[in-house]
């Protein structure tokens, strides 16, 4: 296999591994830009993945599964909102609680429903999202350079991959070009001013966490009904936290977050390929180092060595109306 082919394969894998990160990072962004810390991405993703796989198995349609995933994650978002926005509870604790709860609940319900040790039954072709082949992908396959880029890299992914990449400019547009986005950002920076303008802070924050729920639900469904063919216990394996790191790395903005997700996805894809590979001059690269790189890079960024990451001003603070 020549180098070009290898690069195409690696980038192809990168698109696949970064898709759930992109969706979840955007989800985190909507929530945090409105002032609600969302550490629950991991647990919500897990809940979404489970619902999608379980419902898709019963109904036989990935789309119904996707809807179930989104319904689950919206419900979890509302729970998070109920604790943090309505009852002004601690947002970090609420997020951790949802993560732990979902880690147990998905396995418990999985065993009760399917008795396969926490797994859901394998989905057949019809109940999963299938790759979409672009028109003419077969025909241009042998065109040098551009052919493989079109037919292997761009074509042949499932619908959710494309949705994730469209979601980034869409999120940007909503966030920076609509009244809703302006209010959402304002409520995360200075809720007092928004309240003075006669806009309900609580309602605004609830809407933001619902947006967050929709996006993270898609990322969960992607894991179990598009990338994989069933739900596995704790299948998110820290992806929610990586998405969180990517969102922070992207300084709470859609396009930089996309770049961070692609970088982290690339590291993930490369880690599996680098196993046991000896690089000239460096020696064998420890896979664990590559796996830890997203976290290390995020810490370095947060330390202020790669520009400054400034969170929304009112992040983590419940809004108390003066009496």
């Amino acid at each position, binding site marked *: 296999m020549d180098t070009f082919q290898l690069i195409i394969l690696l980038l192809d894998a990168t698109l696949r591994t970064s898709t759930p990160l992109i969706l979840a990072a955007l989800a985190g962004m909507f929530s945090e830009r409105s002032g609600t*810390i969302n*550490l629950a991405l991991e647990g919500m993703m897990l809940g979404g993945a489970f619902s999608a796989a379980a419902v898709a198995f019963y109904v036989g349609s990935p789309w119904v599964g996707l809807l179930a995933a989104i319904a689950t994650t919206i419900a979890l978002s509302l*729970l998070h909102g*109920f*604790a*943090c926005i309505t*009852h*002004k*509870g*601690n*947002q*970090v*604790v*609420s997020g*951790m*609680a*949802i*993560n*732990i*709860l*979902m*880690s*147990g*609940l998905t*396995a*418990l*319900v999985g*065993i*009760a429903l399917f*008795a396969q040790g*926490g797994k859901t039954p394998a989905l057949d072709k019809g109940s999963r999202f299938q790759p979409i082949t672009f028109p003419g992908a077969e025909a241009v396959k042998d065109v040098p350079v551009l052919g493989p880029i079109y037919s292997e890299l761009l074509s042949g992914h499932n619908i959710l991959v494309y949705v994730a990449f469209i979601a980034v400019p869409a999120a940007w547009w909503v966030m920076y070009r609509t009244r809703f986005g302006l209010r959402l950002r304002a409520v995360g920076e200075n809720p007092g001013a928004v309240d003075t303008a006669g806009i309900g802070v609580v309602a605004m924050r609830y809407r933001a966490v619902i947006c967050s729920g929709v996006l993270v639900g898609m990322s969960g469904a992607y894991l179990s009904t598009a990338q994989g063919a069933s739900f596995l216990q704790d299948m998110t394996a*820290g992806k929610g*936290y990586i998405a*969180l*790191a990517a969102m*922070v790395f992207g300084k709470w903005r859609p396009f930089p977050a996309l770049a961070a997700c692609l970088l982290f996805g690339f590291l993930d894809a490369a880690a599996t390929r680098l196993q046991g590979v000896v690089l000239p001059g460096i020696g064998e690269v*420890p896979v*664990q*180092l590559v*796996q*830890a790189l997203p*976290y*290390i890079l*995020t*810490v370095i960024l*947060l*330390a*202020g060595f790669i520009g400054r990451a400034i*969170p929304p001003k009112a992040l983590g603070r419940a809004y108390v109306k003066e*009496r």
Partner: protein
Amino acid sequence: MSKTVELPRWIDVGALPLLNLLLALVVSGLVVLAIGENPVEVVEILLYGAFGYEEAWGYTLYYTTNFIFTGLAFAVAFHCGLFNIGAEGQAYVGGLGVTLAALYLDFLPFPIMLVVAMLAAMIFGAAWAYIPAYLQARRGSHVVITTIMFNFIASSLMVYLLVNVLRPEGSMTPESEQIAEHLRLPFIHDIAGALGIEMASSPLNLSFVYAIVISVMVWLFIWHTRWGYAIRTVGANAVAATYAGLEPGRFIIIAMMISGALSSFMALNEVMGVQHRLLIDFTAGYGFVGIAVALMGRNHPFGIFLAALLFGMLYQGGAELSFEIPTISNDMVVVIQGLVILFTGAMEHMFRPRVTKIYTAWRLRQDAGEAA
């Protein structure tokens, strides 16, 4: 705002947390019902499994030991206004310290080794907490995010070390060599046996006693020393602390390092007391449960002890449960944990306004009665 009366202490630290705990348990019961089992039976098995026979007690207290350490760790940082979510990673790296000391200084006699192992755990755990602490204190990076990142970094680092460095030659499993027999913490049943008392064998070891001692020391430290006072001041109001001549950054670092050291003591129980070697993921989520333990215990060592006992009971009883009822796996305990954290931690204010209203009405009526 209408007139309210401040809630007395017994409601604030007693009744309200209990009310929240009750709600968490009721919802857990509903989950049990939903998966088609009988909640009453589950509670019976849980309680029997945790306290029903002598061996069960030992296991319950063994789990309790871990939760005391991680609960105290979270509490100390919390008194300084910090969320240390990194107990998991700090304990993991602390375990590395204990293991290295026990493996490479195995010529030391046990009493000296005990001190050396404690110091090694403290140093490794505190060092792992130092970086996020420094970044929070001096560069303003949020400690919640950095400690989460450090948990993952610790996990990768330890897998690397266990697979490539610590694994004995020829072994396939990624775990360290066994530590020498004379360097292991004695089991309580062995100590009792030496004193002529018959006890069922369990993993409960000397570190439980150590956990109690440390609890008292943390209580003394937080409420009866200058540093403890300074830490609480910084936690309550960092700006006021600055005006009082305290440098918040300094105490943020101190509190986090103490927190890291406390979580690392969990490794004494696990590595030196029970497993006798370093295992992958030996921290098994105890660090995260420490958050729940501290929040339920209102960040006071005595409360933490009670909450740790509750979680120890859930762990041991839960293990029994998965034997008795196959449809209920250990995950039920994880669900209960999540619900307890949710209701006692995140939704702790849910009942407060209502309880305050009821209590105020009751007091006003009483006052009126006395006046008449």
